[in-house]
């Protein structure tokens, strides 16, 4: 029976659509990220946060940044110089959290973060978020967690959707998707375009830290094609290709361009009902270039190319135990005009095994071990993980575990040599060690009637944290400042999260989620706080949402949604004068803020949906547009229309 269930889960997971029967809180939905095997959310041994297509639609999120900051407490997006985005995910930066698209890694980074605007939310079936170290299954960069974005499959014989949304600052989002499903073949083609204009913001006099005066918009195009062929009930082949383009116009004469070309082939074979094999090849190329408007030339200055081969095999036993064995090979190529040399290649290889043991009706224990090898500097790493789930009651789970996370130094961090307009030189460090984190966590969830409660605590002890250090002069060159990548000792982050949600039969539902994050930043030998490259996580964050939905007749339905978030203030130790470090450091206070969004979605018939929303309902305008404040200049009216042409009658 269990093997039949496993097979069914595999099929369902690969089909990707949500099972919603008997699932007030999606507990019957299948998730795959925590153990790399399909599990019902209520049974998964690693705590997993599931964001469904329904959540994404309700939030009307454009990309993953838009979604996470409205849905996940403890996640904040701030900015670096030039308004480049930086994520703080419960104390971990962009390189400490692994983003996956249908299980595949993404090439390219800017200021250590992936290009979030590339991760659009159109045609996303669900997002699975596993907090805490997961390097025993996912390798480097999974120290802070894994965010796996899983796209929709085509269920109906054909689908054709067009949609558009308009808002302030000439913001527009226009998209379309075309799906076909016939016999053994399924195809989904989607095209999406976004645009937001640059706009100016006004700061009060005498800011205490750097501020933004122009908010840069962008223009994106995202085209995705996926073809699925299932010659038998046990075999599935998926081919995909994608193109992404983004342009940011910081200066009129030199718009910055970002492009991504991706392709992949994946084969899934259910060999016996108990044995399952998956093989895949993935190609991802992320390029950056500057367009010279005067001479009409487009000059590339960055390219990261990843070729990845993956294989994973599962065997399940009648008792419910599952063995997972996998291996990956990646060739990583980096061209960056700011490297000490022109380009760098690296091969990496890994192998891992996991055993999921159903010890009893109430106990489940999962152990995993992974070996990673990196050809550059011949670095290798062994990462273990051990997790347990205890079910004292049918509707209650207690989970706890330990996991090791690591992040191999990026090629850029080893070989960078960037002269920042003559002010200082950011330089790589070939001697960097891998950043290693030890993650301990415990969580509990309980469901009773229309109510669901979850609570979790975690502690991360991070050794050899990789970051840029203190600017310094060389003894041979007292005029030029250098900023090196270094390993920091003594970094830790601990915190917790508590969520209560309810869904009543009258169409009303509510959710409140609170996160506490405490970063223990590195200190110098005298025990004093040193300058922190990025502003630390805000200690308290609270998310509130209330939804109400009613179908008044066959032809008319209405959904109302109120979302709010509150983020506490935060202090950061920064150089008084970043370019004259002899003046020492001081504390900069960044204020708390709250943002609310009210939206109304009206459904006309089965095909039409009109959404009207007011973002930043309380018309919040920051006094100073610091690098960690929301870049809003007040309330924003958004109007959107979506038409499912296949449902027109």
């Amino acid at each position, binding site marked *: 029976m269990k093997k039949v269930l496993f097979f069914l889960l595999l099929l369902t997971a690969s089909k990707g659509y949500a099972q919603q029967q008997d699932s007030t809180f999606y507990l019957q939905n299948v998730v795959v990220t925590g153990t790399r095997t399909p599990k019902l959310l209520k049974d998964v041994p690693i705590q997993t946060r599931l964001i469904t297509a329904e959540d994404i639609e309700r939030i009307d999120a454009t990309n993953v940044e838009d979604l996470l900051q409205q849905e996940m407490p403890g996640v904040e997006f701030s900015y670096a*110089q*030039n308004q480049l985005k930086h994520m703080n995910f419960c104390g971990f930066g962009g390189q400490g959290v692994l983003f996956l698209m249908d299980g595949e890694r993404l090439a390219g980074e800017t200021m250590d973060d992936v290009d979030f605007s590339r991760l659009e939310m159109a045609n996303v079936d669900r997002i699975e978020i596993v907090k805490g170290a997961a390097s025993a299954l996912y390798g480097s960069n999974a120290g802070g967690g894994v965010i796996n974005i899983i796209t929709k499959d085509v269920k109906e*014989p*054909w689908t054709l959707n067009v949609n558009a949304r308009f808002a302030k600052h000439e913001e527009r989002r226009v998209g379309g998707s075309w799906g*076909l499903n*016939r016999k053994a*073949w399924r*195809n989904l083609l989607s095209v999406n375009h976004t645009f937001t204009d640059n706009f100016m913001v006004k*700061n009060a*006099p*005498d*800011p205490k830290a*750097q*501020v933004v*005066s*122009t908010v840069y918009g962008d223009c994106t195009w995202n085209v995705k*094609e996926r*073809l699925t062929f299932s010659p038998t009930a046990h075999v599935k082949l998926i*081919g995909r*290709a994608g193109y992404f383009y983004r342009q940011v116009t*910081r*200066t*009129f*004469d*030199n718009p910055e361009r970002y*492009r991504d*070309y991706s*392709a992949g*082939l994946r084969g899934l074979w259910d060999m016996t009902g108990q044995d399952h094999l998956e093989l895949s*090849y993935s*190609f991802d*190329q992320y*390029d950056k*270039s*500057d367009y*010279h408007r*005067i*001479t009409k*030339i*487009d*000059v*590339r*200055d960055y*390219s990261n*190319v990843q*070729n990845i081969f993956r294989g994973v095999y599962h065997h399940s036993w009648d008792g419910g135990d599952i063995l997972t064995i996998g291996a990956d090979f990646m*060739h990583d*190529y980096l*061209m960056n005009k700011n490297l000490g040399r022109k*380009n760098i*290649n690296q091969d990496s290889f890994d192998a891992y095994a996991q055993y999921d043991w159903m010890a009893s009706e109430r106990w489940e224990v999962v152990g995993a071990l992974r070996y990673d090898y990196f050809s550059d500097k011949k670095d290798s790493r062994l990462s273990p993980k051990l997790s347990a789930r205890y079910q004292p009651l049918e509707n209650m789970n207690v989970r706890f575990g330990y996991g090791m996370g690591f992040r191999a130094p990026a090629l850029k961090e080893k070989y960078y040599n960037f002269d920042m*307009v*003559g*002010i200082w030189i950011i330089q790589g460090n070939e001697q960097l060690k891998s950043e290693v984190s030890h993650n301990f966590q415990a969580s509990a969830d309980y469901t009773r009637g229309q109510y669901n409660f979850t609570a979790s605590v975690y502690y991360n002890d991070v050794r050899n944290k990789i970051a840029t250090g203190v600017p310094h002069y060389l003894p041979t060159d007292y*005029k030029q400042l250098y900023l090196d990548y270094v390993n920091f000792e003594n970094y830790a982050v601990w915190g917790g999260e508590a969520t209560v949600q309810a869904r009543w039969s009258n169409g009303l539902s509510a959710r409140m989620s609170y996160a506490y994050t405490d970063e223990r930043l590195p200190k110098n030998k005298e025990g004093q706080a040193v300058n922190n490259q990025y502003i630390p996580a805000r200690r308290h964050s609270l998310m509130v949402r209330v939804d109400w939905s009613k179908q008044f007749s066959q032809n008319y339905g209405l959904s109302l949604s109120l979302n709010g978030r509150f983020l506490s203030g935060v202090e950061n130790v920064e150089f008084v*004068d*970043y*370019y*004259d470090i002899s003046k020492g450091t001081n504390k900069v206070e960044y204020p708390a803020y709250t943002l609310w969004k009210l939206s109304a979605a009206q459904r006309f018939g089965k095909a039409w949906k009109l959404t009207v929303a007011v973002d930043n309902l309380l018309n919040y305008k920051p006094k100073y547009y610091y690098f960690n404040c929301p870049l809003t200049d007040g309330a924003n009216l958004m109007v959107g229309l979506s038409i499912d042409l296949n449902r027109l009658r």
Partner: protein
Amino acid sequence: MKVENSLFAGFSIFKSFVAVGSFVLMSGVLSSCEGAFEGVYDDPDKEVSIKKGQLVVDATDWQTWHYIDLLEADAAQQKEGKGYSAIEIKIPTERLEASVDEEHSQHEERAGIYTYWYDVFGEGLSKREIRQFVPTKNQDEPASWHLAVHRNNVRTNGGAVYMTAYTSMDDLPESSEAFGEVAFTEDEWNETDVWTVQEKMLQGLIGNQGIKVNSLLSSWLKVSLPPVPPTFTLNNHVFILKLKDGTFAALQLVNYQNAAGVKCHLTINYKYPY
């Protein structure tokens, strides 16, 4: 139903197309670990041809004036395969030891490096305060020159400038007589715009050379701070330069960066005598 059938018919063709396309794509991709689609981009090292009546000056260096003799530029262009090289003369930054009076007086117009603090992260360059003055010797000049460029600054050799409404050299009137009645702007003393010492720029401190410049002709390239790094704005209007010997030249900045994106790499259209 018709829509559905035609969609499926299209789908069959599409499937074959995608299958073949995928195969070709995968073969192409696998053959190169260093990526594909190189043809999308342009080569920054490709030599750009210099047109007739055009000169290129690499004026990127903070501490160098580039002196241009338009007759020499013309002569150099006549010789096949040889571009014009402006005469480079360094800006003096060494303290003039003979001087004992280092207190700055705004009316003295003394050669030297004037360090100003600018409100780079706030109100911008217009809000500034003098912080230091270091006297230096006067700027050296070659025997013969018409204009000199330093990054976004331009000086004339005793000339004066008028900005026309034209944005193409081809649209100019036949002769400079058309500008006989207009008001020309002469060079003026300046100690805030010729950025020479950049070490403390992000502290808002910039060392400027005290020297006469032509603010109108310098407006062909405007530098704005904030943001950091600064932005450059090209003004492609044609300027008329009246030289001290009474002759005229027409000048137009058409580009300020090279193919690698380096700023203050100037491409200038000129017509002399005009």
